[in-house]
């Protein structure tokens, strides 16, 4: 899940602009900031001072459900498909991001002094209402307790957005509470399958250098039910969610323009994660890959050559300068699987400082000649600007 790395860091610098207002164009600080971001993201030398992930390592729970502050970035990421009893469909996304901004930060006596910054995104797709809502929050981490992650019992929070779980190695079930300005989620999530390790036993290599990697595991099928409030209207909902956990210190390589990432949950009790990294020349980077999770919870890595992905429809952002794919045909010949993937709503673009598209998709297709269906999420970056 390389997809997020650039996004939050850029967002973070934009938050500087948000608090500290945009500087006049052409002033030295504007370029200074951009440069420093580029450097910050450009992999190797900027990752100096941070803890590194260099190979497979045994994960330990509940410790690894908590934060790993020595690494540059980390996230707790949940997406899901929800439906009311009457069949009204919603997609939702909540992500808690943690960043270490300064590996050389000294010990501090004030609880406010910290190198940890947190960001959270909340997105809600009102499929039938044809509207997409999103919210964003920032806070510092550290001992002050405004945002953080802890175990025994498990919890991740930023202000009053919170994800709480059980004590002990198994954090399930989870409760997610997030409310903001006309929008509220209160959901219970329970794992239908155990967590799966992505890549090589959780070691997800992103570039040729072995240190260019992250630790990555997922809960691909979480039974979900609870309540959501939209514009004062209260809905009882249930459905399926997906949770990703990932941390690391360096990811990007040169020459990438963006990525397309999918999490797909099928009604035959299987799930697929797949991402492609798009290069400047339109080609797909060789490190693109995915994971297939079988009904019994066993999983297999998908390589680029295993998967055919074809864009079948596009949508133009109302801002006019970005054209996103919003429908795809995905084929995995080795598994005799063909899926038609389509956004539940074309406009699920987050038009914040850093623009990207993140939205719920619906799936129709066939495996071994039998029809399959399902839902999922797609994320598309690097189309605007």
């Amino acid at each position, binding site marked *: 899940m390389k997809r997020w790395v650039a996004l939050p860091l850029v967002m973070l610098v934009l938050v500087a602009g948000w*608090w500290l207002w945009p*500087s006049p164009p052409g002033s030295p600080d504007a370029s200074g900031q951009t440069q420093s971001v580029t450097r910050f993201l450009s992999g190797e030398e900027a990752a100096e001072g941070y803890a590194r992930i260099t190979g497979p390592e045994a994960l330990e729970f509940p410790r690894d459900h908590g934060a790993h502050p020595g690494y540059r970035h980390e996230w707790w990421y949940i997406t899901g498909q929800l439906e009311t009893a009457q069949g009204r469909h919603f997609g939702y996304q909540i992500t808690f991001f943690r960043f270490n901004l300064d590996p050389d930060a000294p010990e501090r*006596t*004030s609880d406010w002094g910290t*190198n940890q910054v947190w960001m959270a995104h909340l997105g809600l797709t009102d499929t039938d209402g044809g509207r997409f809502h999103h919210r964003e929050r920032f806070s510092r981490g550290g001992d002050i307790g405004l945002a953080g992650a802890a175990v025994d019992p498990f919890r991740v929070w930023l*202000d*009053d957005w919170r994800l709480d779980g059980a004590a002990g190695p198994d954090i399930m079930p989870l409760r997610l509470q997030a*409310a903001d300005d006309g929008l509220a989620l209160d959901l219970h999530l329970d794992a239908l399958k155990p967590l799966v390790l992505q890549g090589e036993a959780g070691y997800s290599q992103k570039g040729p250098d072995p240190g260019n990697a992250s630790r990555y595991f997922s809960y691909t099928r979480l039974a979900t039910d609870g309540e959501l409030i939209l514009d004062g209207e209260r809905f009882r909902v249930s459905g399926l969610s997906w949770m990703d956990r990932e941390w690391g210190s360096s990811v990007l390589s040169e020459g990438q323009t963006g990525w397309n990432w999918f999490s797909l949950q099928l009604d035959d009790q299987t799930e697929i994660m797949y991402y492609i990294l798009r290069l400047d020349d339109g080609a797909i980077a060789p490190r693109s890959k995915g994971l297939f999770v079988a009904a019994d919870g066993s999983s297999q890595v998908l390589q680029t050559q295993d998967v055919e992905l074809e864009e079948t429809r596009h949508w133009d952002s109302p801002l006019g300068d970005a054209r996103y794919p919003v429908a795809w045909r995905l084929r995995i010949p080795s598994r005799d699987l063909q899926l038609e993937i389509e956004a539940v709503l074309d406009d699920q673009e987050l038009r914040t400082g850093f623009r990207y598209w993140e939205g719920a998709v619906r799936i129709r297709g066939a495996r071994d000649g039998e029809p399959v269906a399902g839902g999922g999420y797609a994320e598309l970056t690097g189309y605007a600007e």
Partner: protein
Amino acid sequence: MLRASLRYLLRHPWQLALSLLGVALGVAVVVAVDLANQSAGQAFNLSAQSLTGRTTHQVLGGPQGIPESWYVELRTRHGVRQAAPVIEGEARLAGQPGRSLRLLGVDPLAEGQFRESFGGLAGEQPLIRLMSQPDQLALLDADLAELGLAPGDRIRLELAGREHDLNVAAALRPERELDARGLRDVAVMDIGAAQELLGRAGWLDRVDLMLESEAQVEQLRGLLPADAQLLEAEARNAALQQMTRAFQLNLTAFSLLALMVGAFLIFNTMTFSVVQRRQLLGLLRAVGVTRGQIFGLVIFEALLIGLLGTLAGIALGLAISHVLLDLVGRTINDLYFMLSISELALSPWSLAKGLLLGVGMTLVAALSPALEATGTPPRAALSRAVLEQGVRARLPWLAGAGLILVSLGVGLLALVGGLVPAFAGLFLMILGWALVVPLAMCWLVRLLAPLLGRLAGLPGRMAARGVEAGLSRTSIAAAALMVAVSAVVGVGTMVDSFRATFSQWLDATLRADVYVSVPGNGALLPEAVEALIETDGVAYWSTARYGRVGSGEQRHRLRVFHLPATAEDAFRFRSGDPEAAWSAFRDGDAVFVTEPFAYHQQLQVGDTLLLATPEGERPFQVAAVVYDYSTSEGAVMMSRETYDRLWDDPIVNSVGLYGPPGTDADALVQRLRQRTGDMQPLRYRSNLELRRLSLQVFDQTFTITQVLRMLAMLVAVVGVLSALMALALERAREYAVMRATGFTPGQIQGLIVGQNALVGGIAGLLALPLGLALSAALILVINQRSFGWTMQVQVSAEVLLQAGALALLAAVLAGLYPAWRMSRTSPALALREDAA
């Protein structure tokens, strides 16, 4: 006709120049004071706007502030997100003693839309550095440029007595020009760094909020810690600014005094010019010029002088306003709050006010001479004697009116509350007494004539008669001089009285041999306190804790004292029974309040005062009102025992150490220093030193009053010069006749100087009762109402003698030039000139 008028003015350049100067000085003082006041107000508003931003409400805590955990709960448990924590402090630029920075510790990520004034940040990853490193700050671009610094440079700041080498992480670049001015001398830091540098870990000074609805306000109110307040940001700013109102009003009144003296000058000049041209005016009437035209002519002349003088005055006022601005800023910083006034607010309204006042005063002053001019009958060449007789006939009426005005003024001062009526009363008193001057002078001269005759023979008698004979002019000059001298006496006596009272109070209050505190009024470490009180030669000790405590919508200064019984007499009671008061203070929930506090809050012994404590709002009985001259805002005093029962706050801000009788304070300081070592940077002040420093601040505060006093004096001297010189010049013909009849030049000189000395002396004499009355009004009424302080009236012979000498000197100086000129001119020429 206008040309005749111009020619007349130009033919008397001295007279013209001096009246111009008089108006100019008067207007200059008014404009300068107004500009200084406006600038202070604008600086406050700009800084308040920039630093308050969109904040609608603020949560303020008790003496310690607000626990940071309350803020965290507010966000994480109650979902209140439009909230921003703030730590405030003061930092001094190392190596630049006069310059302070206002330190603002904020959480950049919580700031959100609160203060857009902070604008763009220039620097290398400023946000990241601010938050993660303990030594980073951001400063306004313009301030950095002035200091010769850029992002990435180091800056040495003194905080709480310790010097720190900090890094300029960023330059603040506000979008709006107004913010660029409002943020002058503000250093923005991350809240964590600010807590560490100011020793405030765990606490916040306030939480800023943006609340949009009454429901949100109510929600917040329900969540407040027991000793915290939720205040509207605007109301709080207004209350802060209100504190300086009395001070600024006083300045304005003093400046109007200067203008009033200036108006006397105009009156003098115009009357004189009318009197001198009676023949010409009579001639004009004879050839058919109407009364209205004559009136217009005189008014036109006055307008011309008023306009020119006012314009010059505005220019001069702009020039001296910089000096005044500096003084006003220093006083506000010493007495009220930190304010950086870096620029003059050139409000067109200030200038227009100066123009209106200057020209308006001139016209009003010229009204009576203009009316008199219209009274000139055609062809009349009334002899001076007839004219003077007319004037003399009016004297009793004038004096009667004057006495009525004086009693009206006294009535206003004594019977009507408020500051503005008090000042109006003051001005009525001055005006009224000035009207009494001619009659008083007439009597005095008659009284003195025989005496002078015996002392100086014929010239002595002639001088006395000359004064009486020229009463229409001499009396005006004397009145102008009298007004100025009385102002000098009044203000001088007021300052002297205040200083004497303050100094006596210091003697009574400063009982410990050595006082120890942390620079910047931080907290003393508990181990430091222990070391101090255990030092050899310390017999008793006292502690003090300073802070603020909420009470309804207000925030009062709170002083918490632990006092040894022997130090009890450091408090002097204005009211309250000492024995009962002390026992209630120590054992019951009773407090003392200072005199200004009792005045502002209208409290008396036995009343109750509600204070917000950690156990909620509680009533405290006022056991005594004590004298205190340290703050005009006033303060509540509480015993440490009472405080500790209610607050969980061990902090001590200052310790007083008492040795046995005959303790050598310097030696004790030596031992204390050794004992505390490097625990904490501490400030040791011996009793004497603290006293000296306090008086120094006092004197600094009154510098501005002294400056205004000098300016009023200057206006007066100019006025007297102008009036008496004109008088002497007018008599050129008389003197020429005297020369022709055998008087020597020396005798003429003596006569002129003697006459002027007589006028000066009489003016000085008449100024004394008014001056003393003014000082009484200032001390007993105006200061009381402005600041709430009782002072003992202290009349020093020095001030009185100084004033008398000033009057004499000014008058004599005014005689020197005409005397010199008279003695040099040949009588024949003078006779011819006058006839021409």
